[in-house]
């Protein structure tokens, strides 16, 4: 059967999604069967359908204001130094 998604594609997508997947083969079969199932959409006859989007005007959004937190929130984090979150180096 012609594979809709290859191991290389799974590897690439996993890399983009920042997931360290050791055995890509493990995911190929199931992801393939899921995508194969999605092909039913081809027979839905919706090519000319307009996509309805519920838009929210900016005026309806809440005011963008600082709401003070009662505790020192940074102390609840697991990696911090002073007022900064600690993270690995970006090379």
């Amino acid at each position: 059967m012609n594979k809709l998604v290859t191991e290389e594609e799974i590897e690439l997508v996993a890399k983009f999604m920042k997931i360290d997947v050791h055995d890509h083969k493990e995911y190929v079969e199931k992801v393939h069967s899921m995508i194969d199932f999605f092909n039913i959409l081809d027979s839905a006859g919706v090519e000319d359908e307009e996509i309805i989007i519920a838009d929210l005007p900016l005026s309806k959004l809440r005011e963008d204001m600082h709401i003070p937190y009662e505790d020192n929130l940074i102390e609840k984090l697991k990696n911090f130094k002073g007022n900064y979150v600690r993270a690995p180096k970006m090379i």
Partner: protein
Amino acid sequence: MNLKISALEFIEEVKTGNISVEDFISATIDQIKNIDEKLHAFLHVNPESVEQAKKIDKKIKLGEKVGSCFGMPISIKDNICIKNSKTTCASKMLENFTAPYDATVISKLKEQDAIFVGKVNLDEFAMGLTTEFSAFGPSRNPWNTDYVPGGSSGGSAVSVSAFECVASLGSDTGGSVRNPASFCSTVGYKPTYGLISRYGLISYANSIEQIGPITRTVKDTAFLLNIISGLDPNDNTTIDSGNADFLTDIDSGIEGKKIGVIQEMIGDGIDPAVLSATNDAVSKLEGLGAICEPVSIDMVKYSVASYYTITATEAGSNLARFDNLRYGYDLPLEGYEFNSYISKARTKFGPEVIRRMILGGFVPSAGHAGKYFLKSLKVKSKLTKEVNDAFTKFDYLVAPTVPVLPFKIGEKIDDPIALFLVDINTVIANLTGIPSISVPFSISNGLPIGIQLLAKQNDDKKLLQAARALETTVQLPEVPI
């Protein structure tokens, strides 16, 4: 102490002084200790609940104002934040995460003196419909512990069904409240999109998911909706329900109402026992004075594919925030480059979450978006039109909540398509934003069957009236625990 009472009966008993909150909460905690090892509904039990009960008893004794829940024991799905309590989403990734704030639904329940007896199990990040994908092990169906309780709010439904609380809150993205409610013989409610604030619900697929109550009776659901619904400045998708009182007139009945029986939900693949129960439910609705006729909604057969494409895409985006830097499990920073650290940390996601994230990266990607994601949005739009059309002719729609009976643990876990198809009757309410409820209706071979009623957007009050009418026709055996 009789724990087998509804939320409203509990309140009445406390108000009249027949029981104390402390005694009831203590008995509830004992019940959890006695049976939860077998059922695994709870991920955490609140060690302060008895102390909280004593405080409410004291307020009652002193004649002080007490909130309308009167210390009612409620369980909360572990993807809803309670300040200073663990919120794991049943994921190793969030195993040590303590929520720094309350979800809006939690604040509202606290104001009304509800007691949260614990956080309950779910499929990891609510991705699943059996609770088997919890990183902390599956919950079991109290009607037969070899069987799945449904999901993803399986812990919620089990805890209500097994008298480990009087009510629970779950979340419903594609049936995650109604499916376990059906499998465990409880009421499960998915409100109109926006009726309940999602602030503090850890997002899976924001555009369609809602928090919903799981209760023993329809009246209990209406009572909880009165407390937790309404506009919230922290969730711009919330809608104004006009201070609707969902309990008032709940016994109005359905005489003269028109009900459409969705043909695509009682066709191929339906279990004969579920079909028979559905036909029986239609007869009972007619016996209550409703007029039931068949209705066809063509897009139903494409709805599951559309649903999984849309949810995978949103999940891929929502789960990008879990980088394990600010919170998460203990993985030392040293020796890693920034991106490799995040990739390494995210191996803690379970296989179902990883599969959906890979799908969520694939279906909206360049070269594939037109075939999958955009087409799914078009199906969603056409389905919405078809459903709205149906509601020009009918007041309600009816179908079985799930087309099959509860199945054995492990039976479908390796077959994602078989699992997808279990969702076929529930996803349309999420894709179209309409309210939907599962009412316990029948027991077949010791396993529950729920009937689903649907109404048009913002007709939540009317929907509860129909559900209440159907509920009055049913007399079910007690759960064998």
